[in-house]
């Protein structure tokens, strides 16, 4: 079993990671899909995700709005041990 490493990164690093994964950031700092230009929705809150709020988590790479509630949902329902 591999331990998951959870860490914070800077805004530029976050943008680079998102772009490398096929996303983009629009002029309102919302995360969008690069191909369709549609806003990405958090699977838990069903809301659009701002750059400053995003957590980029493993599991088919999931983007979620960050809060205690979404973290609890992610770790109980989405996260699978590798």
């Amino acid at each position, binding site marked *: 079993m591999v331990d998951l490493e959870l*860490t914070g990164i*800077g805004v530029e*690093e976050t943008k*680079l*990671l998102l772009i490398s*994964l096929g996303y983009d950031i629009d002029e309102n700092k919302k995360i969008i899909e690069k191909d369709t230009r549609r806003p990405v929705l958090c699977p838990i809150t069903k809301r659009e995700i701002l750059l400053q709020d995003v957590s*980029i*988590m493993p599991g088919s790479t999931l983007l979620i709005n960050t809060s*205690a509630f979404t973290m609890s949902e992610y770790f109980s*329902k989405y996260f699978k041990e590798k």
Partner: protein
Amino acid sequence: MELTPELIDKIRSFNLPQLLSYVIVTKLVGPALDFAQNRIKELSDEGKYGFTPSETEAKSFYKLRKSDIYRRFSECLGDHWSRNLILLGLHITHLNKNDKREIIDRVRSDVYGRHGKKGIRITELGSTGAIVPILGFLSDLKLKGANSDDLKSEFDNIIADWQNITVFVEADDSKKHILNEISALTKRNKPQFFVFAYGSAIDNTVLTIAELNNKKFFRKNRYVLFSSSRTEGNKPVYMCVFEKFGSQLPTLG
């Protein structure tokens, strides 16, 4: 910067956070940037890293999912819809006083918005430790042959009836008052009920229950009791669960 074999080796030697920093600091462009981005995607797909602006909180949840209480909850109730609320409750227990108020307010608002009062109640089961005797009760039912669906249904019943099957003893409650409360619950003939006392309310609660037990009050009313003590923050918590003799799940006949 040209994409040389040396640069390729260097990029390949980094882990994901290191590579992200390296690309930003060196301002890679052109084929070197393309190669680095492909490598970032590969490393991300390995699923070893999670990136979040709330690192401490994320680490807390990651750790709590391996806790004894959460593990027991999962063993009894599997994929029950409320399992994240138990995690939330456990997380609240571990917060310090300064963080607590703001986070609890936000959590309550998020939980209420999604699950209403029932959600708040389940979160409190995790944060107060009340989930522990419930898990004990459910584990017993499991040993008696209850399957996962039976246990989920029993848990839902307990939550739905929570206000009718719990006594939270106040610090200034007299022994007579506590006795009356417990006595009233035994008369309702519920399969189980719970008594909680915090801090200075514990002594009177323990004494009252001990006196009733010595008088064989619970045996006469066909209840067996299990008590436990724990500390929540700096506050001692006493819990006692009362279980009706021979209470079985309706589905088990």
